[in-house]
């Protein structure tokens, strides 16, 4: 025992080093393990509030472009208002609408911190669980999809950007409706990759790629990008497609968190189906 203590005392620097490294590995593995990242819960609100202070200063620099894009969006939404339609017909009746039930809620948020040059990019936004944000909600911006909510703290959330080597975005070719998966290879923030599109699908350069509601995180038909390059993958009998991303990740500011109100029931149905299949296999 005495020898052991002497040994540890003699090499205490090495043991300290070891302890620090083990600590780092534990927090890293827990973060990557889809479990609640406890470290982040402590630190995220501190760092986010500092980023917020920095942002409120630097935010002035691109107010003009920001206003333009918001104005454009306002114009588009305004054109969808009931007042902007000519009422063709003169009888109005009030009906309790049971055919249309709200499926998506949008929570507007500001980007507090963002990176595009890492292999795994994350975005911090200034809305959290107190505002109704939940884990795995989709995040979109006026131009297209942004990412998926990854961690939620009371006032801030961390969004896994589409520009993350671990992100898988369910997508489809707008023209034909065939589905694929959008991933990012980490090389260039302007381009993403679309895979799993079968070779019999007639795709062409310039085709629009949009989101699909199958992933339950995004609504249907949110723009993602445009095809710029098509390669055949000889192993998988599918195309490897490069798409130009519509979302301007480098100057992202205003985003919306999409709450899918039917998500729980969609997922419940899906897990039930999987369970029943497993039961049938036995």
């Amino acid at each position: 025992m005495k020898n052991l203590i002497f040994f540890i005392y003699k090499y205490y620097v090495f043991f300290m080093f070891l302890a620090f490294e083990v600590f780092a590995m534990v927090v890293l593995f827990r973060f990557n393990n889809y479990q609640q990242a406890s470290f982040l819960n402590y630190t995220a609100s501190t760092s986010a509030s500092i980023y917020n202070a920095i942002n409120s200063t630097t935010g002035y620099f691109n107010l003009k472009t920001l206003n333009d894009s918001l104005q454009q969006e306002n114009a588009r939404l305004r054109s969808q208002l009931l007042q902007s339609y000519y009422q063709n017909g003169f009888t109005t009746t009030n009906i309790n609408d049971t055919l249309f039930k709200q499926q998506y809620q949008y929570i507007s948020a500001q980007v507090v911190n963002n990176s595009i040059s890492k292999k795994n990019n994350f975005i911090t936004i200034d809305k959290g669980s107190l505002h109704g944000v939940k884990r795995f909600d989709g995040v979109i911006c006026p131009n297209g999809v942004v990412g998926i909510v990854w961690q939620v703290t009371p006032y801030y959330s961390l969004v896994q950007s589409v520009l993350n080597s671990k992100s898988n975005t369910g997508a489809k070719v707008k023209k034909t409706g065939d589905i694929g998966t959008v991933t990012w290879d980490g090389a260039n923030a302007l381009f993403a990759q679309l895979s799993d599109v079968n070779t019999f699908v007639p795709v062409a350069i310039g085709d629009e790629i949009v989101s699909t509601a199958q992933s339950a995180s995004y609504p249907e038909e949110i723009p993602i990008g445009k095809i710029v390059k098509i390669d055949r993958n000889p192993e998988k009998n599918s195309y490897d497609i490069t798409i130009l991303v519509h979302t301007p990740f480098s100057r992202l500011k205003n985003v919306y968190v999409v709450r899918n109100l039917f998500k729980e029931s969609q997922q419940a149905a899906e897990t039930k189906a999987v369970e029943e299949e497993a039961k049938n296999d036995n």
Partner: protein
Amino acid sequence: MIIDILNFLVRFVLLVFLQIVVINNIDLSTYVNPYIYVVLILSLPYNTKPWLVLVISFLLGMTMDTFSSMPGPHIAATVLMGYMRRFYLMFSTNKDDLETKIEPNFSSKGPIGYMVYVLLMVFLHHFVLFFLEAFTFHQFFSTLSRIFFSTLFTTLLVGLGQLLFYKVAKKA
């Protein structure tokens, strides 16, 4: 002594601020991510106690992790660099200097000696950092080229910083 501590704290805050506000927003390319904050550890005086170097590395790594949305990589990389620094200095500096309060910089190690020291330590740091951030050996060479270019860039920035402060020190 108190002046040393204050001096260190000011450096700590300034470097972290410079890193997160300026350097992290350069976004030159996905292959160039310089992390100049490591210079804080690299320029600790020769006679800093090894345990103190480790504690400072840990705190610095923790601070950077707090600002980088993924916990762990900066701690692991900076602590490893802080641990290895001692061995490189033992090998590259003469014994008498190691007992003194001199900081490794252009004047004490010579420009070439200092740049080699920075290059090796930064490479070690970036190697661990980028692989932990990627968290996979998939696309091994893409990560490796990231490490390569970022190391060059960080070393360059540190060298430029030295040129800047070396001159100031000479005048004073």
